[in-house]
């Protein structure tokens, strides 16, 4: 692996409170600012300059009392949602990042009991989820240099989720797919016309 080239990561998080706000610790976090506040929901912009190839977010301060239930209805819940993520001011494809990242849940006792009673399976490590209802650690590991690596991940993701026809027509393909034709064209160009 090459030496780590510093880059700036920006996260837009939406947090909601139960009785209390969640506590969030983010590795190599420089600045965070509240950009909107509706009383129970806030949007926070966090800027980080990771010193290694990962970003880690530790979310804590939730117990059973943070899910506020009135007359059997959830009135409020303490959650953390990753809404957007930028690298060097370029917005990344959130679905792709969420597929690559993992969230290690630390379930509450109440939830463990609830699942046990109903035989519900609990996945302690989850991808794709962009709202974290439990305490836990969200971790995204990337590679360097970042953009070529990101481009490869994007291609793999598209190959997995889109049809060949759609990729050829809309997402785009590489001219390498037409090597034989390009070879003929080059030969013709090399001949005097």
């Amino acid at each position, binding site marked *: 692996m090459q030496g780590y080239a510093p880059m700036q990561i920006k996260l837009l998080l939406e947090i909601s409170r139960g009785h209390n706000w969640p506590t969030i610790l983010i590795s190599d976090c420089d600045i965070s600012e509240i950009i909107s506040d509706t009383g129970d929901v806030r949007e926070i912009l966090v800027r980080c300059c990771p010193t290694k190839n990962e970003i880690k977010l530790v979310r804590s301060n939730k117990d059973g009392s943070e899910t506020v239930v009135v007359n059997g209805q959830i009135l409020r819940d303490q959650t953390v949602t990753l809404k*957007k993520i*930028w*690298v*060097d*001011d*370029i*917005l*990344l*494809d959130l679905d792709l990042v969420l597929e690559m990242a993992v969230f290690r849940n630390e379930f509450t006792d109440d939830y463990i009991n609830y699942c046990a009673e109903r035989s519900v399976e609990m996945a302690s490590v989850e991808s794709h989820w962009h709202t974290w209802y439990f305490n836990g650690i969200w971790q995204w590991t990337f590679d360097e240099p970042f*953009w*070529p690596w*990101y*481009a490869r991940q*994007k291609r793999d993701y598209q190959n997995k989720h*889109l049809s060949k*026809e*759609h990729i*050829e*027509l*809309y*997402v*785009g*393909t*590489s*001219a*390498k*797919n*037409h090597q034989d*034709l*390009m070879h*003929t*064209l*080059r030969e*013709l*160009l*090399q*001949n005097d*016309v």
Partner: protein
Amino acid sequence: MYKKAALICLPKQDLHRPPGALAILASACKEQKIDYEVFDFNLWLHNNTAEHQWNEINDNWESVDPFKQKNTLWYKLFLEKLSLFVDQILATAPDLISISVFSDLSACPCMEMVTMLNQRVQRESFKIVIGGTGIRAKLPSFASDLCLELLTTKSIDYFIFGEGEIAYRRLLQGQTGQGINDYDAEQIDDLNQFPFPNYEKIDPKNYKFIVQPEIVVTGSRGCVRKCTYCDVARYWPKYRYRTGQKIAEEMLHYWQTVNVNHFEFSDSLINGSLKQFMEMNQTLVELKQQYLGFDPQYKGQFICRDNKSMKERDYINMAEAGCKYLYVGVESFSNQIRWDMDKKFNNEDLDWHLKMCGKYGIKNSFLMLVGYPTEHLDDHKKNIQWLHENQHYAQSGVISLIVFGYTAGILEDTPLFHMQDQLGIVSEYADGNEFWANNWVSVNNPQLTLKERIRRWVELTDVATSLGYLMPRNEHYIKRFINILKTVKHKKRSFPIQASHV
């Protein structure tokens, strides 16, 4: 007055969404209380041929003269399928067959369909009208424009040139007049005057959409720019636009009536009128707040503007309104060439645009024009240098696609066509009609031969590929270049050419 219309679309067209023309014609029929059926032969052909056959047929519409391939297997298969489709059309007993000829690439399919319709015993029971920008295609096998050729031979009864909304309504009422069988098209000043295109008999879900079904929306016609190589002004001399409010309401209407949230604009430029574009974005943001579930996403052709005309706040509004993807006619990364083209933006404006698109998640497809008549080797090198310097935008997906096209062609009635003397443009090959628009060289820039333009195209696609820029499937371009180079081997130059850079 007609009783039943058959509304027909032909290859070659995009399959992602229903052709807008069908819904516009359907709306006219509905308004005039005339029964109609919709027939999209392009979609039907795709659904009724194997993938490799479809690709071959579809690619070959872009060949120099498809008629010359009448004896090939692909052409015979096409005719076989067409015959089956014509049976289906005639089974509905229409008395007016209306064929939309989307572009020059639909000219050959149109000619074949019309020929086949004329061979049927029912011919006297229906009239044929053709319309669309492709009706003036000049096929190498014919002396005049497609529509004149067909009218002269009485193969069709009418053609409608230019905007069809008024002329087609008149025809449905059994009348003729301006814009029918002449080139004196009536321009519509108020694009808001017609009812929304009608999708009652067209299901966007049947198309090959990418994420969700899509519908075409028209916010304006014509263009505020007069780019030298472009022939839009030939069809729509005057730029007209709808109000941003109306456009947003139309999108809401499609969500409410056919549950479609994804839109593609047919406009030459969605931000031609900045005022209306911004009003549309603002209205969409407001409608999204009012109607839960209305979450529009749109794509369209866009002109780069400087950071005073398109401020950061405007990009934020675009993103919030659902702008996801822009087609940008960048054409060249050389400021001088873009200046020569009258594009009216520079690389600084392009940098600003990419920065804002990166920040707010708007993807771009760059449309390039290789080998403009004034392009020198230095300009070509600037193209290569730009690709290197902005590689991260390709890798991040901000530039999702780059399309290098067919190399510069000189289309009839474009500003460039009328600048040929000024630019010293002459035919490169004495007998080069098969590749008409590409058969040129400038005596002021004699190194930029047809071969050199293709060489630059190859070099650019090679560099772009190696840097991670993605292109749509470009087999048809390569095949055409091979065909051209093989053909010119046996042709005589009409102009002495200096050694090329190969």
